[in-house]
């Protein structure tokens, strides 16, 4: 019996008194303010759909996988989403291996409720054959290190992994159209999940003094606090779920205050998650392009010829691959690529088959990721303002004038862009083989033409 007593962490009365008295002076033991989050770091694994989140010292890993199953009888047109949690004993001496304990089940339920009740994941798009085959998405959350506030960290990990997960593309075939063919990733680019919004969980801790509220409690604070509440909101301010498991009673005034705080924090967190996912996606696309940079010749004519063959593939992340080109090659080459890709756009327009807007070189790159529709809409909307969008930031690495030029072209509305774009692109194509300074002048004159 005494052996078991030796292995747990204990709270001293000194620590309990100190944490509460420090909070009365608005300081926390690690130097944070009461409403500050710890440092957040999101890392992605090699596979699609694997993410590791570090919130201070707390580490959580999440992995998403999908399987074709029969749907539930009362929902024949919807796929399913299920969350599994594993509290690894290496995270905390009090975690036992085997069946999930109470806190593991609670954590899984909070994340599940946040995603399911708010319908953040579009399950109808997961249906392949109504009443026969649907995708079942499974999220496995592993706790690697418990330093407090597992719920928030696990939620972020689940969201990050769902955003980067790609499921294989399927098509119906066979004589009766009932046979499902699942395409392996080498044959057809896998598709992302359709995620409408990101429900972010924000955890509050309450102490015996009613006015003390902390955000993102650490391990020691969790041992000292008398009540907790987790509010799951998205950046729009919709409350997706609230969990207050017993503990000290809180007045409704405090709860409303906390919900308002949670709204602000959810906005921050959503931006951070989206940034990290975007960076990861562009890196991945970069890697795929680098693999073929030897085959994509620097010679302009050669590029045009090879591009022509890949004209028909219309999917792809237009901004992403454009970014990649710019980063990858030096200025002259990137100009050429733009020229050729814009030639591509031009020819596409001639065909009338493209749904590309101006500045969409994506059609020739079969290896880039599928476009995330939300991101695409957001970036297209932001184009109109020609404000420094995310893509512009990365383009600053290349010539500064060039992105301005492109953004300018992009900012024109679609119809006029089609015509003016063509004429502009026509000029730059001819100039593609000419020395740089002349191209600058031409771009300047095309600017004036605009």
């Amino acid at each position: 019996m005494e052996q078991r007593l030796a292995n747990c962490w204990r709270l001293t009365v000194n620590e309990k008194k100190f944490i509460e008295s420090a909070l009365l002076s608005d300081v926390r033991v690690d130097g944070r303010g009461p409403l500050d989050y710890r440092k957040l770091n999101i890392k992605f694994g090699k596979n699609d759909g694997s993410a590791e989140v570090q919130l201070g010292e707390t580490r959580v890993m999440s992995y998403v996988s999908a399987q074709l199953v029969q749907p539930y009888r009362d929902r024949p047109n919807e796929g399913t989403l299920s969350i599994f949690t594993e509290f690894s004993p290496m995270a905390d001496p009090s975690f036992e291996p085997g069946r999930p304990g109470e806190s593991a089940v609670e954590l899984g339920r909070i994340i599940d409720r946040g995603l399911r009740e708010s319908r953040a994941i579009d399950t109808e798009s997961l249906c392949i054959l109504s009443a026969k085959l649907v995708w079942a998405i499974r999220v496995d959350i592993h706790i690697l290190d418990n330093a407090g506030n597992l719920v928030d960290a696990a939620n972020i990990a689940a969201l990050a992994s769902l955003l980067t997960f790609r499921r294989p593309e399927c098509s119906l075939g066979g004589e009766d159209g009932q046979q499902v063919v699942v395409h392996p990733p080498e044959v057809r680019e896998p598709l992302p999940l359709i995620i409408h919004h990101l429900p972010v969980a924000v955890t509050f801790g309450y102490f015996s003094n009613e006015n003390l509220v902390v955000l993102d409690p650490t391990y020691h604070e969790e041992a000292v606090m008398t009540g907790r509440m987790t509010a799951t909101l998205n950046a729009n301010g919709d409350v997706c779920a609230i969990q207050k498991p017993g503990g000290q009673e809180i007045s409704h005034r405090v709860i409303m205050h906390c919900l308002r705080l949670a709204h602000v924090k959810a906005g921050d967190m959503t931006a951070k998650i989206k940034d990290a996912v975007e960076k990861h996606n562009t890196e991945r696309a970069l890697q795929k392009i680098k693999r073929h940079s030897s085959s994509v010749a620097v010679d302009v004519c050669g590029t045009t010829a090879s591009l022509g063959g890949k004209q028909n593939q219309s999917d792809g992340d237009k901004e992403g691959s454009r970014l990649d080109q710019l980063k990858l090659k030096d200025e002259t080459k990137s100009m050429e690529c733009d020229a050729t890709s814009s030639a591509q756009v031009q020819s596409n327009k001639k065909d009338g088959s493209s749904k590309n807007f101006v500045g969409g070189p994506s059609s020739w790159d079969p290896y880039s990721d599928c476009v995330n529709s939300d991101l695409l809409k957001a970036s297209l909307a932001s184009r109109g303002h020609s404000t420094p969008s995310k893509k512009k930031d990365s383009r600053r690495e290349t010539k500064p004038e060039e992105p301005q030029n492109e953004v300018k072209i992009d900012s024109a509305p679609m119809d006029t862009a089609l015509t003016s774009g063509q004429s502009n692109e026509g000029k730059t194509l001819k100039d593609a083989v000419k020395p740089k300074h002349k191209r600058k002048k031409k771009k300047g004159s095309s600017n004036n033409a605009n």
Partner: protein
Amino acid sequence: MESKSSGSATNLVDQLVYPGDVVLDLSSMTNQTIKLGGGLRQDCDVISVMKAGRLRFSKPNKYWVESSQKRYVPHAEDSVLGIVVDSRSDNFLVDIKGPAIAFLPVLAFEGGTRRNIPKFEVGALLYVRVVKANPGMNPELSCTDASGKAGEYGVLKEGYMFECSTGLSRMLLSSPTCPVLDTLGKKLSFEIAVGLNGRVWVIASSPPTTIIVANALINSEPLSGVQQKIMAEKLLQRVQ
């Protein structure tokens, strides 16, 4: 450093050694008494390393391996910080971060008799001395020094305790005083109690000061002496 050749020990003193390294070749040294501390073992004619760490030597003839880890292995005559877990009729059960719970006899206090047994609540923090620590047995503690005087042993009230590695505890207890304590002590007034089991207790006039000191100490572990001074000075500048 990792050479398996049995050089004389002077090559390896203050170097990192790994299990299996041969530190001393006894056949080449005659009529000498060598004292071996933790982490070393005698294999016939050679002394080899059992635990990874730094080899230390103290005149005239003591060798031992020092390593920093989160686990504490109790040794006699160590001063540690313990947390009271339970009280029995004849001793208190105190957790000292070791493999087994330690016993603190109720009479092991200065002037302790059956009539004035102190009352400790569960979770009280004590500064105690390890009297006996045999492997496999529960260690025995005492709140007096070897001569029976209380000294600074006893219950620690208020303040804040944090856990650290054994290496940091030893660094904070080293003499001359560790640079971070020196620099902090010039501007702030605080009191610390360092347990060799990887627990440190800090108290200062106000909670923010206590927090500054605690964080400075925690962050000073991987830094060298000069870096510690710089870190502490920067921290103090930011605060004042």
